[in-house]
């Protein structure tokens, strides 16, 4: 029997203008001053080694890429086990293993830049000054088309996350905004009582967009040993298990704030991504799904296009926030 050919995307150049049914589809979206050719990207920490494993012509079709969070100094990460599958999802406690900002700029950034699509550089400082230093280094070296501030990693043994405190959120975002020459995105945590309040704090401080959501704090216990399964004891839950809660948070925040939202949390298919867009997200990020189906981000993009055609929509803006109540 012959090998079944993978379903490949037709080699069209610009996904921002896809022709069909005699009309042009406009998929372009705007984050601050940055124009993206379409609304599909990947979630931080879930995409890597593109140069070795991916067909770069296909990766280029995405609207943007978000590499794993970078800290000022290198971090070796948490002891194993770091991951565990759960019903319709997974726990992770990686602990932001990364080569530090200098190592990232030297070893990882050049290959990412060569792909040729906008990079949202995800950064995390343990203090306000660290955030500022990282931003300054990227500003000097170039290479960041936007900064995504990771205010919400649950795996660092901090008592309280920046994104759990409206004042801290306002302060960090304002400090970065004051020195950044590219759009600033605040990535928020779902582990809060009132997500609207935190999002508003980011808006007040001048954020250009909000990324929602990071993982839910979570844990699993091995009842044989009565130990936590994860080496870090606790971790974060991602994947389809969290999707309905993510959609709800995006909807709640979208009603309150005017800046764009990058929606994520359990997106596996285009159908899932459409929920986020309809709820009010301007962009969607595919995370955990990359581990199950590395083709997921492209399938999401293709599916959005197909949906717009079927529903005779010409502009992605007709879809964003189009929930009927």
């Amino acid at each position, binding site marked *: 029997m012959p*090998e079944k050919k993978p379903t490949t995307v037709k080699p069209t150049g610009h996904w921002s203008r896809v022709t069909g049914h005699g009309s042009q589809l406009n998929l372009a979206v705007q984050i601050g001053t940055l124009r993206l050719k379409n609304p599909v990207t990947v979630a931080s920490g879930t995409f890597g080694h593109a140069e070795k494993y991916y067909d770069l012509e296909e990766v280029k079709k995405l609207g943007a890429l978000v590499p794993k969070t970078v800290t000022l100094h290198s971090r070796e*990460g948490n002891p194993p086990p770091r*991951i565990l599958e759960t019903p319709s999802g997974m726990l992770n406690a990686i602990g932001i293993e990364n080569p530090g900002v200098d190592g990232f700029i030297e070893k990882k950034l050049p290959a990412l830049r060569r792909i040729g699509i906008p990079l949202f550089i995800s950064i995390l400082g343990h203090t306000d000054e660290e955030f500022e230093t990282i931003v300054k280094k990227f500003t000097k070296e170039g290479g960041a088309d936007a900064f995504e501030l990771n205010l919400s990693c649950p795996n660092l043994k901090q008592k309280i996350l920046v994104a759990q405190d409206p004042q801290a959120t306002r302060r960090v975002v304002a400090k970065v905004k004051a020195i950044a020459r590219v759009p600033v995105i605040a990535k928020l945590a779902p582990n809060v009582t009132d997500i609207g309040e935190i999002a508003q704090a980011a808006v007040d401080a001048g954020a250009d967009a909000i990324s929602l959501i990071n993982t839910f704090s979570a844990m699993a216990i091995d009842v044989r040993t009565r130990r936590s399964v994860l080496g870090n004891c606790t971790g974060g839950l991602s994947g389809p298990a969290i999707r309905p809660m993510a959609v709800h948070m995006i909807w709640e925040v979208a009603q309150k704030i005017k800046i764009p939202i990058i929606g994520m949390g359990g997106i596996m298919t285009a159908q899932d991504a459409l929920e986020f867009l309809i709820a009010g997200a301007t962009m969607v990020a595919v995370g955990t799904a990359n581990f199950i189906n590395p083709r997921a981000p492209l399938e999401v993009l293709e599916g959005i296009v197909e949906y717009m055609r079927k529903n005779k929509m010409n502009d992605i803006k007709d879809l964003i926030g189009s929930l009927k109540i």
Partner: protein
Amino acid sequence: MHKIQNKFPIAANERLCPRFYRLAVDAKSILKSIRPGQFLHIRVTDGLEPFFRRPFSVYRAKKFVEILYEPIGLGTRLLAEKKPGEFLDILGPLGNHFTAPPKGTKQVWMVAGGIGLAPFLFLSDELKHKGYELILFYGGRSKGHVFPMKEFKNNGVKTWIATDDGSIGVKGWVSELFRTLDPNPTTTMVYTCGPHAMLASVQSFVKARGLRCEASCEEVMACALGACLGCSIPTVNGYKTVCYDGPVFDIAEVVFS
């Protein structure tokens, strides 16, 4: 988006002995480049349960790409139900591979525990007719984990077997088979694969005798592409991913806890 993600038809899926199955896929694109020690990451269901793909070493790569597996949980049980003609979503080849025995090697040891046997048929396919004496030390739980191993013997491999319960071969761990031997470190190369407890005992054996040894390690995997950093194990040079930096490591480098 992926160079190495494909759907391949199953050519065979059969039981070799009470505990082990062999599955073959018609995957010419993998055949071309796969090396012994590399693995495949297989999606065993279109649904969400189990959620992750499952990694499997390549057992043989001749006409088909084959894996050897033991149904121990949901993923491997679902695999055992697959029929020839069905398609499997596979990422591969992945990871690094065993390196060739260094110059001067006369004797090659393959030390395998349980399903850790899988990569060694492929390795012996590559090493046969090269003048090495090939020896397999295999430890299984009981005789249900042992099959005739004709294919190994056809490659000229001498096989030594131990079982935990002594139902076949020597009673005890695989290390019982070579505990008292004292091979020449300049002419012997050791390859090993199995549970980490077994690898740890091989590590102390080869260290005491100054033997060169490569180990294929295991850890739970999500992406298997080096992206999630979920499969890291401690080494003397810090954490390394089993899927991308490994699965094959110089055994002296790995820290078994």
